[in-house]
């Protein structure tokens, strides 16, 4: 899904035409077209970027004095708050906070790795099975059903979890009819990694398999016929023909996933536990942590510091993975 070409087109070999009236007029039209989108990017993507310096400041929101050159509380406070160097970052590794910080980072990375690996296996398996089914109508029908969850928000999934597993939910009704102890899902941490994994698979497997299915469908059938004549079974055909063809896409999607390894699906981790404090240790990822700090009374420099570390690591990771890929398989590199 993310296999997009971002690199600009190679300069054409012929020299560029000079700035004649036509060329200027044409480029002016193009600039006018780009303008609304560029404005959006400036306001919603670039304007927050200078705000990263909050991570190095003792930021307090204050009203600017009457004679200040800009009458905006945020900008005034951003400029005039005192610099504190790395103090905000040190707060995160204070003995009292270190455990939490490590825990939340570990949650984020652990869940992401788990989703990446399990999601990859399931998506490819699903694509192969759908492709192999003899009845094409049924295969299409199954596939259509599998990517319906992609459109359902995590908030609604939170309702499903609640209906299944609250004190009187379906699971507990069944358990009590077998005279077993009811489970209290909003108080018990151990279930949640599985709930998150299952929910994630439920929502994204069908969607993840589409690209793989498109590639498998495009593989020349003669390759398989030749392999079958040589006596290769389905398993060998998969590893020697299908899988190598999937590698480019797998690599690309994993690069993007690695770049996002410190980011998380906020809605999933925030909505599903429905605010239960007892699940904090398993449901808090970096994004949730930043949000919770933003909503609490701690100085804004702390969440800003976490956010900055997250952005910078994500940025570096995507550059590094892309660099490695470009060195080994230049055709697969993102840019």
């Amino acid at each position, binding site marked *: 899904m993310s296999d997009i070409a971002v690199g600009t087109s190679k300069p054409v070999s012929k020299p560029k035409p000079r700035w004649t009236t036509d060329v200027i007029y044409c480029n002016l039209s193009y600039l006018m077209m780009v303008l609304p989108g560029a404005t959006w990017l400036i306001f919603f993507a670039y304007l*927050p*970027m200078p705000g990263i310096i909050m991570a190095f400041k003792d930021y307090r929101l204050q009203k600017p004095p009457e004679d200040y050159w800009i009458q905006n509380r945020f900008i005034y406070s951003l400029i005039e708050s005192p610099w504190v160097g790395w103090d905000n970052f040190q707060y995160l590794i204070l003995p009292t906070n270190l455990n939490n910080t490590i825990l939340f980072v570990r949650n984020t990375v652990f869940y992401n790795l788990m989703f990446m690996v399990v999601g990859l296996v399931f998506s490819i398996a699903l694509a192969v099975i759908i492709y192999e089914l003899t009845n094409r109508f049924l295969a299409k029908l199954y596939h259509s059903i599998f*990517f*319906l969850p992609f459109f359902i928000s995590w908030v609604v999934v939170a309702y499903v979890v609640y209906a299944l597993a609250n004190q009187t939910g379906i699971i507990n009704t069944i358990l009590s009819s077998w005279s077993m102890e009811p489970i209290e899902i909003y108080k018990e941490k151990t279930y949640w990694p599985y709930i998150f994994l299952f929910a994630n698979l439920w929502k994204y497997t069908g969607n993840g398999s589409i690209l793989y299915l498109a590639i498998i469908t495009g593989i020349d059938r003669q390759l398989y016929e030749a392999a079958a004549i040589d006596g290769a079974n389905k398993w060998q055909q998969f590893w020697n023909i299908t899988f190598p063809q999937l590698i480019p896409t797998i690599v690309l999607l994993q690069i993007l996933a690695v770049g996002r390894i410190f980011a998380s699906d906020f809605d999933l981790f925030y909505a599903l536990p429905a605010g239960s404090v007892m699940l904090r240790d398993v449901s808090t990822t970096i994004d949730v942590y930043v*949000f919770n700090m*933003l909503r609490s009374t701690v100085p804004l420099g702390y969440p800003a510091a976490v956010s900055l570390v997250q952005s910078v690591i994500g940025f570096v990771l995507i550059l590094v993975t892309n660099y490695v890929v470009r060195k080994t398989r230049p055709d697969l590199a993102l840019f």
Partner: protein
Amino acid sequence: MKLLPIKTKPARDMLAISPATNLALNILMLICVALTLAPFYVIVIASVTSEASLIQNGYRLWPEEFSLSAYTYLFTEGSIILIAYKNTIISTLAGTVLTLVLVMLYAYPLSRNNFRFSTFFTFFAFFTMLFGGGLVSYYMVMRQILHIQNTMWALFLPSSFSAFWVFVLRTYIKTNVPEELIEAARIDGASEWRTLFQIVIPLSVPGLATVALFSAIGIWNNFFNVLLLVDKVELYNLQYTIYSTLNNIRFLLQNADKMQGLVNLSELPTQTFRMAMAVVTIGPIVLAYPFFQRYFIRGLTIGAIKG
């Protein structure tokens, strides 16, 4: 007696899986289908169970007693859900139209070789996919500079453009709109705007439909921006309304013993009512799904062409 044409069994495809394997895989797929649809089933069944039987017997796979009272209540007195519906529909429509305009206008020049600043604007958009200012400054900019908190804008404006869709659409235009056609239009004296509206847009409808679809779903399901930027109940969208209801009730029920006398539990929205809220939230998506799913598949694969 009419002779039936003799059916000759076609030679079995040497690559086809054996009937036994096929059956096994079909059974496996049916189990997966059941698991995929189970969540929908669970909330729909809970929403049509009568409240009394839900309290008495808990949630069941099959209701002891049917009742549609939750839905009638939802659409008569349940004003919060009607307001939320109105907000969701308005923001989805406005946001989708805005996304289409912004993304198309940005993507078309980038697809043209004669746009001199193409490199700059490509990077300008691409960089936002790599790096961001972080949640805290985003929050401050939204609230202190753009002042979109507690307005209808907060429901769709922050999610109505995306560099990712620009690149998908640019690739789509490059591969589906013949260069010669655009050249011909220019030679005939059409301006860039006219070329865009009369040639490029009509030929890009499938690509645009995909962008519209994803944008609409994204805004319909928008939860985070409402959580962050909206504090007024009359501006809540569906997702946030049902989230806050679930959250409040779970909290109250779990702490009911500590709050004896403080809250009257019987005054809370009933369980069936809440499940009915979840059902009407996903209802339009599920109903429209058979019609838009082909655009969905195309949307995920058009970006795959490296241009």
